[in-house]
């Protein structure tokens, strides 16, 4: 069972990534509608063309999410899905949209991820201190509530730091190489008007001088939370061929999950993106050497390092040398996160990973302006949720 590769990304919209959002506030539902309108416009489609949606959580309800969105949009659909894969959700949403289209369930599917603040609640109620536990569930009976949170092993920084520390013990660690990864990405990000670090490149010295957060991770190796949000339109072959842009065919995908908390990973240095990427390449019939750009989920530098190795772009343990010996910027011989990545753009909450999908589409469509690669026909995209908990990969192609 595989995709025929006959569904394509035909349009997208990405809100500018802003540290302190001061514009008009909309509810998540309003942002969903707005992102839908703007990405349909981009594709050259209209509201009535929609017949599928893929969403994640929204702020206005805890359940019945797709029906709530469909009602708000006023557009009936034949396919509705809510994806719950953390930072891997954007990649997971896009392949589910492609699969639904190939099965004939729908021919225009919106995948949207709002990421701007909503209006202030006039009756907010008391602050729940459990919100500080973030993605670690404190519900009674939750394994995290009992065996992780009491020891302070929660949120993201300490988990990724422990992965990096284990990697250092097994394969060695070069802080300068990790800093260079940030420098190369920020060089591309400095040319991206949607990025929070637009026109703000950094040096290796800047990264190494930034504050240590959790050994060995430093502040500039960690994404900055920003307001963002993005949507893509996935459409059938027939529709893609009459849209405005070069279709971005979804040729292969893979997804792999093994645990929620990294304590229960069999090997912290071999991430689930390995099996997910192998499946994606196999399905697409594309080799690693055919890839023109890698858009790799980059919540932390260590995430990119492990993805380069586990997805097969270099051998295990050789990632640091790979980073040292290639120019990873959009001008380089091996472009990684040609939009700056989330390290360069900022992370608009759950929408962060959609920047990777959109940059892949943007490069294939030839719309990346100052960052446009000379040739871009094949793109590898990865998504990472939690702490290397759930990971997914896509292979995109322009004919």
């Amino acid at each position: 069972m595989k995709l025929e590769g006959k569904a394509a990304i035909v349009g997208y919209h990405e809100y500018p990534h802003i540290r302190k959002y001061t514009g008009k506030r909309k509810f998540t539902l309003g942002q969903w509608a707005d992102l839908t309108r703007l990405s349909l416009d981009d594709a050259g489609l209209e509201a009535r063309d929609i017949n599928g949606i893929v969403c994640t959580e929204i702020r206005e309800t805890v359940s019945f999410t797709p029906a709530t969105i469909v009602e708000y949009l006023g557009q009936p659909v034949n396919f509705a899905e809510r994806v719950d894969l953390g930072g891997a959700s954007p990649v997971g949403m896009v392949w589910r949209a492609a699969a639904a289209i190939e099965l004939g369930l729908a021919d225009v599917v919106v995948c949207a991820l709002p990421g701007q603040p909503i209006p202030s609640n006039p009756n907010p109620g008391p602050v729940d201190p459990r919100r500080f536990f973030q993605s670690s569930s404190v519900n009674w009976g939750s394994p995290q509530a009992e065996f992780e949170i009491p020891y302070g092993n929660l949120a993201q920084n300490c988990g990724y730091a422990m992965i990096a520390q284990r990697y250092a013990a097994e394969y060695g660690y070069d802080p300068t190489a990790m800093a260079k990864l940030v420098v190369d990405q920020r060089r591309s990000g400095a040319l991206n008007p949607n990025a929070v670090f637009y026109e703000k490149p950094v040096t290796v010295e800047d990264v190494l001088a930034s504050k240590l957060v959790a050994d060995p991770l430093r502040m500039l190796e960690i994404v900055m939370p920003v307001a963002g949000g993005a949507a893509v339109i996935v459409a059938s072959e027939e529709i893609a061929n009459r849209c405005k842009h070069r279709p971005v065919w979804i040729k292969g995908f893979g997804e792999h999950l093994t645990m929620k908390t990294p304590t229960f990973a069999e090997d912290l240095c071999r991430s689930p993106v390995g099996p997910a990427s192998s499946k994606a390449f196999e399905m697409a019939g594309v080799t690693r050497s055919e890839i023109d750009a890698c858009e790799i989920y980059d919540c932390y530098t260590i995430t990119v390092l492990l993805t380069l190795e586990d997805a097969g772009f270099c051998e295990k343990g050789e990632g640091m040398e790979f980073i040292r010996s290639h120019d990873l910027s959009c001008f380089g011989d091996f472009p990684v996160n040609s939009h700056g990545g989330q390290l360069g753009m900022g992370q608009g909450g759950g929408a962060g990973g959609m920047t990777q999908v959109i940059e892949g589409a943007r490069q294939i469509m030839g719309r990346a302006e100052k960052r446009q690669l000379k040739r871009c026909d094949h793109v590898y995209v990865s998504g990472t949720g939690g702490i290397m908990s759930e990971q997914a990969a896509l292979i995109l192609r322009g004919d």
Partner: protein
Amino acid sequence: MDLTKPYPIATPETAPFWEGLRNEQVLLQRCDDCGTWIFYPRSNCPNCLSTRLNWHQVSGEGTLYTFTVTRQATAPHFVDEVPQLIAMIDLNEGVRLTSTLVAQETDDLKVGAKVTPVFDHVSADVTLLRYRLA
């Protein structure tokens, strides 16, 4: 805001583990059908899904799989513990668990070091399983 420590609340499945720690014993489940050692406690074996699980006392000793030294608290509830020495410990039976290290000098901490349990009676009802270098 209530920032009392988020101590564990035992469930019917996990109560023997916490009861063991109160008595300064480490108890682990083992599957009677396939022999797999299990952590955290649960109703079904994560290798074969069998429900024939029994409790066994073990030494609690192990090795340091990885750790970090936090320079800012992972949540406001842990501000008094910074720098937190958060760790993953491989028990000799082959299971891994989250803990914190009790150490004076972080320079001495090395991945692969032998570690031994410290029973930290944090309240009348709760004992946490922390570790120190053996």
